Each structure stands twice: as structure tokens, then as C-alpha cells.
């Protein structure tokens, strides 16, 4: 197939930046990485990009295609080529570019290391010298976080980091949850204290780009939410973000709706609230302020209260309220139940079908 690519070239020595277009011939099963190889081998040997495993596990080839972070080795080009699209390939965002598609990963690893990403054993090693005994169910809590391959796609897309370069970022925080959620780790409180500081979990803007773009299903934003829930469960709630979240819950379980007039004093404190009296007056004009001693109670408030009770009864306060024993890769949908195989492969966006072997259904009996 014919594949067209526009690649942002960058030379750090001269600072020159240019968008170059390449037209290549590639096999139908080719990925973006295969196409870059063809460009480098046959058209321009000076093109720079990282690669290694070509099977979505080493995390080398993170880059942007049409502005969104992808692993080049995971991106099949068939559909794009068929549509005649010529995608723009560029280096990942939020990290300095070294050359062409290669970024400087040092800031990424510096944040990673700042979270003390190693197990700090909480209790003595098992006295028989063997393994810790932990149920699989308990280990599933960190299943998704343990899948992270450090490719940097989430960091590339992080909007919070774009406005605050010191923000710890989705990767480092997901790694943090990998230890906070590990029953073998004994430094939970210290870790959470660290993530509750400035540039920590409460600075996430919840744009969900990291979840969207993670090629491994780690869902870093969910990890950040779990860290928040664990912090509050353990009473680490000094940050305005924590207080804000807490007030939502408190408000819902007492009156069944969000009492906005109390949100500012509960989150930012009474002094801040007095400074914002003008805002309060505006709220009042729109009928949003009820007299605080006699708040309105929603008709179906019991539903909200029962929900809260259920969470408590099931002991799902904290991260466990967010973990559903999910298996990240299990969410992949591609198989067929009611459709014929032909329909599957003709579906828009389906991977190209190499060939379909004829196998008797009884074969495996």
C-alpha cells in the first residue's frame, strides 16, 4: 500500500524545524513504526526516533500522530492509507525535543524517581523466608497501575502539566498508586503526604486525556482518583482539593444535593469566604442560597444516604470504592458474538484481516 507521512523534523544543534512529507510503499500489515523504518532506510537515514520491541511492551516509540500521543508500533496504517489521509507525525508534548521524534526523557524520570518508586516493606519478611501471602483479589487493586510501560504518552498529553511543568503528572502518580495499593508496602501515609503537596494529585485538571491516550489501559486519572480517595480515608485532607471532594460527599449524604453556598467556606475556609461575599451575593440573586441553619433537603435524600451506607458496609471507602477488580486489557472489544466474521472485518476501523483459515468447528473437541 501507499503511505504518506508528514514528519516534523527538528535539529537541536541549529534549532531548525521543518515539516517534511514522505511517500512510501509499505506492506498492508505495516505499523507507523514500520513506515518510519522504511523512510529511514530508503529515503532519509538521518530521521531520528526511538524503537525497540515493536510489540507494545518496551515503551520506546511514543510520539504524536495528528496531535495525539500513540505508540508507533501499535498504530496500524492500513485504514489511514486507505482513506488517503496523510497524518502529521511529531515528537511527544511536555518534554524537550532532542531531535526529530526523540524527546529528552530526563524530566519524566526525575518525577518518576521523586515518588520513591520502590517497595518499602511494611512488615517483616515472611518468617519462613518465602513469599508474602496475599490474595489475587487484593493484588488486582494495582493490576492496571502495574501495566505501565513508562512510554510517556500520558505525560505528553497532560493538560495540567502544560500549565504547571512541575506537576508530578499522570505517570509518576500512577506509579505512586502502584505502591499505595500494594499491601506489602508500609509507606502509604508518607507517600500520600507527598502526593498531597503542591503539584500533586489535587492539581490534576481531570481532563482524562491520560486515560484516553494510554496505550496499555493503565488509566492514570483513575489512579489519581484512587490516591485522592485513600488520602481522605486516612485523614490527609488539608488540601483544598480534598476538602472540596469531601464536601460533595457530606452535602450529598446529608441533604441529597450540593449546597454550593457552603462549598467555599468548607473548601477555602471562612476568611476566604468572607473575601468572596460579592460572589455570594451573586449566588443569592440567582436563588442559590438557602439560609444555612435550615438547608433544603431533597425529596429522595434516602437514596443518597443508602448509597453512602452501602459503601461503608462493603468496606469500600478509599481506593476500593474505585477499584472494580477490572482487568484493563479485558476491555478490548473486537470479537464477535452475533456478527459474522465478515461483518467484523468490514467494520470501520477494524484491523485488516490477513487471511482466515478454514477450520472445522469440531477440531478442538
Amino acid at each position, binding site marked *: 500500500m501507499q503511505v504518506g507521512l508528514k514528519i516534523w523534523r527538528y*535539529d*537541536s*544543534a541549529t534549532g531548525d524545524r521543518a515539516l517534511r512529507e514522505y511517500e512510501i510503499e509499505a506492506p498492508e*500489515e505495516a505499523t507507523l513504526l514500520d513506515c518510519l523504518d522504511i523512510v*529511514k*532506510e530508503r529515503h*532519509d*537515514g*538521518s530521521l*531520528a526516533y526511538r524503537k*525497540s*520491541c*515493536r*510489540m*507494545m*511492551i*518496551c*515503551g*520506546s516509540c511514543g510520539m504524536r500522530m495528528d496531535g495525539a500521543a500513540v505508540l508507533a508500533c*501499535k498504530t496500524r496504517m492500513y485504514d489511514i492509507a486507505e482513506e488517503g489521509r496523510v497524518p502529521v507525525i511529531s515528537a511527544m508534548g511536555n518534554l524537550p525535543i*532532542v*531531535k*526529530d521524534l526523540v524527546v529528552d526523557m530526563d524530566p519524566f524520570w526525575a518525577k*518518576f*524517581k521523586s515518588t520513591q518508586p*520502590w*517497595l518499602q516493606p511494611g512488615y517483616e519478611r515472611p518468617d519462613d*523466608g*518465602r*513469599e508474602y*501471602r496475599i*490474595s*489475587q483479589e487484593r*493484588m488486582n487493586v*494495582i493490576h492496571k497501575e*502495574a*501495566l505501565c*510501560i*513508562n512510554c510517556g504518552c500520558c505525560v505528553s498529553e497532560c493538560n495540567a502539566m502544560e500549565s504547571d511543568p512541575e506537576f508530578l503528572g499522570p505517570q509518576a502518580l500512577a506509579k505512586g498508586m502502584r505502591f499505595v495499593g*500494594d499491601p*506489602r508496602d508500609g509507606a502509604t501515609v508518607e507517600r500520600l503526604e507527598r502526593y498531597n503537596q503542591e503539584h500533586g494529585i489535587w492539581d490534576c485538571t481531570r481532563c482524562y486525556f491520560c486515560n484516553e491516550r494510554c496505550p496499555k489501559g493503565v488509566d492514570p486519572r483513575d489512579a489519581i482518583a484512587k490516591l485522592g480517595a485513600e488520602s481522605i480515608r486516612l485523614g490527609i485532607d488539608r488540601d483544598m482539593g480534598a476538602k472540596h471532594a469531601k464536601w460533595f460527599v457530606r452535602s450529598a449524604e446529608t441533604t441529597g444535593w450540593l449546597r454550593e453556598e457552603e462549598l467555599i467556606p468548607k473548601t477555602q475556609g471562612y476568611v476566604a469566604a468572607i473575601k468572596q461575599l460579592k460572589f455570594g451575593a451573586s449566588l443569592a440573586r440567582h436563588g442559590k442560597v438557602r439560609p444555612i441553619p435550615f438547608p433544603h433537603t431533597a425529596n429522595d435524600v434516602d437514596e443518597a444516604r443508602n448509597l453512602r451506607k452501602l459503601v461503608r458496609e462493603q468496606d469500600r471507602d478509599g481506593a476500593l470504592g474505585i477499584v472494580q477488580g477490572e*482487568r484493563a*486489557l*479485558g476491555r*478490548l472489544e*473486537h*470479537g*464477535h458474538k452475533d456478527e459474522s466474521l465478515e461483518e467484523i472485518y468490514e467494520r470501520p476501523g*477494524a*484491523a485488516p*484481516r*490477513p487471511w*482466515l*483459515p*478454514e*477450520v*472445522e468447528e*469440531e*477440531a*478442538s473437541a
Partner: protein
Amino acid sequence: MIAKHDVLVVGAGCAGMRAAIEAFDAGADVAMISKLHPTRSHSGAAEGGINAALGNAAEDNAEIHAYDTVKGSDYLGDQDAIEVFAREAPGDIFQLENWGAVFSRREDGKLAQRPFGAAGSPRTVYAADITGHVLIQVLWEQVCKRDIPVYEEFFAWQLVENDGRCQGVICWDLLHGGLKTVGGKTVVLATGGAGRQYRVTTNAYACTGDGMAMALHAGLPLKDMEFMQFHPTTLYPTGILLTEGCRGEGAYLINKDGERFMKRYAPNALELASRDVVSRSEQTEIDEGRGIEGSVLLDMRHLGAERIIERLPGSRELSMVYAGIDPIYEPVPVRPGAHYHMGGIETDNGGATEMTGLYAAGECACVSIHGANRLGGNSLMETITFGRRAGRSAAEWALTHTTVEVPESAERDAEARLRELLDRDEGERPWKVREELGNSMLENFAVFRTEEGMSRQIEILEGLRERYPNVVVEDKGEVFNSDLTQAIELGNMLDTALCMVTAGLVRKESRGAHARPHDYPTRDDDNFLHHSITRWKDGGVELSKSEVRFTHWEPQERKY
């Protein structure tokens, strides 16, 4: 020389990181050199698991593990090394777990173990089917904890031998450009395999045998190089690995007629015979016209969605992304693909090589645990157990010796050679040579080998080696010049490939991964129960042999 250390580890996969951690804990000043960031190493792509006789799933002990390994090696493994290996493996696994490795668990909370090929007991500890990833992560975490420096994206090119011992490594700094020499009282090579010599391989682009070639060019012996393992289940058409764990969990191999053909080749072990046996069976089916487009089918449908999603999520994802097939609903096309070098740099049980101060561990080394055929799950374990042992020996030697000196002439010579390569403006692009190497190795030195094919391959390799000095590097820049490093890697692959085929040609028998069904279909213990040793001499390969070390087990016929 930009820096010197007590112990310098080259390569930062499982073996390299484990060696560095051990050397650090022994009190040495240790650093690592790697052409990739450590977590990018190809150990991370290992899927199925790591073998240790924990006895969690069924009765097991080190002796059975050792016997299975000896038998799997077709009696070419060194039995004293294998005994050390099987005995120390469980302790190493518990240590990894205590460090935080996220292994899969049994209901009672102990580590789960799954059956693997040619193993007498379910012995393979695993983390779903991303075991290598989990190990790479936990080792990297421990490296971070110890703050061990890593010369990242340094391409190791040449060993520095001075005063009869290895004292450092000359590298190309990929990120900034320029040759940089790092000194070490001892050097541990842990650079992995060279599967990229083949067009169809499970290996990463980085697996180009750099360490083996460095040792070879420094005059060291490479052992048993003819034994290249072909993994039975690599995905069509890319060669990407689908773990043996698929078969461990119960998947079938079927031919185009829907027949479970393994019952004709290994009536007892079926799909879980050792890898050489399964690969040969598949190749026979394909050669005799019962394959489909050069593949057979791996059928997991009967395992059911839940088990596939829980135990084999990575394999499912790989099948879906690279073959467009969901194994829950359809069988997956697979074929044998180059996977693992049983051979490598000859070492003793402590990782020491013939050169004072130089050690080796992992796939680039040959202790030899694997002999003529490696069992699935034994290589990850080898990286840990022998990575640790090599790190310990290297640190102990380094701590009792003091000086590091790199003669200026070594750096000057390297610079001159590099300039010659970089300054060449006209010639052939390396990819053409690489492509011919990959195709011809697959044709003439794969699952089945013939006298004629191997002779032809030697001629082809000589031809490619003649063309190699004329390859041209297009990128003349200093920053991230991967065009340059890829050209150097090609040279490494050509020389190590020549060792493999030369050793293969004179081994006139069929043993383990070296199968010659047409001219020498049986094992010949009278004439070939010895290791092949290849050395570099006058720009060519010099062959010799060495004894296999026996302890308890006499060679027997191998049946599964």
C-alpha cells in the same frame, strides 16, 4: 575516559540490573551502560514466566527441575551449573517477590505456578502473560532505590583490554554524540541475544548480539553458537511472540485439517513437549502441505473468554493488534520464529570469562544451562540467578584490586575506525545487507538444516561481510545518530552469524535445536557430546571443542 567504576555492567535488562544490584549490595561502586533506557530492554517482552521449584502447585524439587533441564538440553547442558541453577532459583524468586514483583497468586495467597513445556511439574511462576515486564519493573525500582548510575543510550562498541585484563568499554554516546570511554575494574556483559539475524524473530530491534561480538573480537570463545532456539508460536506475519503460557493454559496446535497434530509427534506431552520438538513438528506439517500460508493454528477458543482475559490478556492484545484476530473467537496463525541463543560467551558458574576482569550473564553468556535446547521459563530464571552470581564475582574481584587504566591508543584506534565509517560518502545502505542476512539465515539455518544449505549460508555470509566495509551511514550528525549505531549492529550480527553456521556445519548430528533430518537424523554421543567453541582469528572463525560437565545424569534417548 569520562569516569571509572569498580564494576561496569553493560546492558540493563534482567541480567544486567540483577548483576548491578548484587555488585552494589556487595559494596562496589557500580554503574550500568545501556543503549536503551533499562525498562526498554527486551527482557521486558518475556511473557510466560520464570521457573523455580517452589512446589506451590504440585510436588516439586530442585532435583526434578535440574533433571528436566538436563533432558531438555539434550544432555549438552553442564550439569554442575544446572544443579546450582535449580537449587538457587527458589530463593531468587522469593527475593523478587519480597522486592515487590507483582506475580499472579493462588487462592491461598502463595505464588501461582503454571505448567510449561517439558517440565515435570507446574513450575513456572508468572504474572499473567507479562512476566518479563513485571521483572524489569521491579529490578528498575531496586536500581532507583540504590541510585545506581546508568549511562543511558550509550552504545557499547569495544572492550578495553589492558595489561591482560578488561578495564573498560568504549561507547558511542547516542544522545550527545562522540566516543566516550568508561573504565571499570571489572566489566559484566549482559547484552542479550542476537535474534535480529533472522527475518522472522520474536526479538526486539535492539537484539543484535553486541556483547557477543565485543567478546568475540576481543579474542574470547563463544560456546555452542549453532544452537538457536525457534519458538513454536510466533505470530504470522510479524514473528511477534505468543507465550508458551497459551499452551500451558491448554491451547491446542492444529493444522489446516483441524487435526491436533502434536499427538503424532509427542503422544504424551502433546503441545507441551519441549520447544525444539514442537517447532520441528510444526515445520514438518508446514513443509508437508498441512499448514496454511506457512503457518499452523494456535487454538485457544475452548479456554473461554474469562480464562483468556485473566491469564493471557497480553497475548490476546497482540493477536488483535498484529494479526487482526481475537483468540476468544478464532484460532491464531503461528509459526516457528528465531527466539533465543542457547550459546554465547563461555563463562564459569560465577560468570567469569577467559579474560580477567570480564564477566558475562544472561542470554549473551553460555554457562551452559540450556545446552542444545532451552526450556521455556528457564531463561528469565537464568538472568536472575546468574546475573546475581556474576555481579557478586565481579564485585569481589574489583574490591580486591585497585587500578583502572585505559591506554590512549585504544581510544585513538576506535576513533579512527569510527571516522572511517562516518566519513564514507558512497556505498551501499546497510538495510540491504541486513535484509539479505535475515532472509538467508531463515532459509538456510533455521529449524531444519542441511549440509548444502549451511555451506551456501557460509558463502552468503562471506559475501555480505565483504560488502559490509562499504556500507554508508547517511546521518553525519552527532545527536541521536541511530543510523550509525544500526550500521555497527549489522557488523556484530554478521560476525556472530558466521560463528553459528560454521559451528553448525561441523556438528554432523541432530541434537536439540540443531536438526539435520536429511543427512544426520540422530544424536551421535560418540562423536558430538561436546561443546562447540568458536574464536575469532585472522578475520575468520576458528573452531575447537570442550568437554560437557556431567554429575548425575547419563545421556538417554529423549522422548516426550
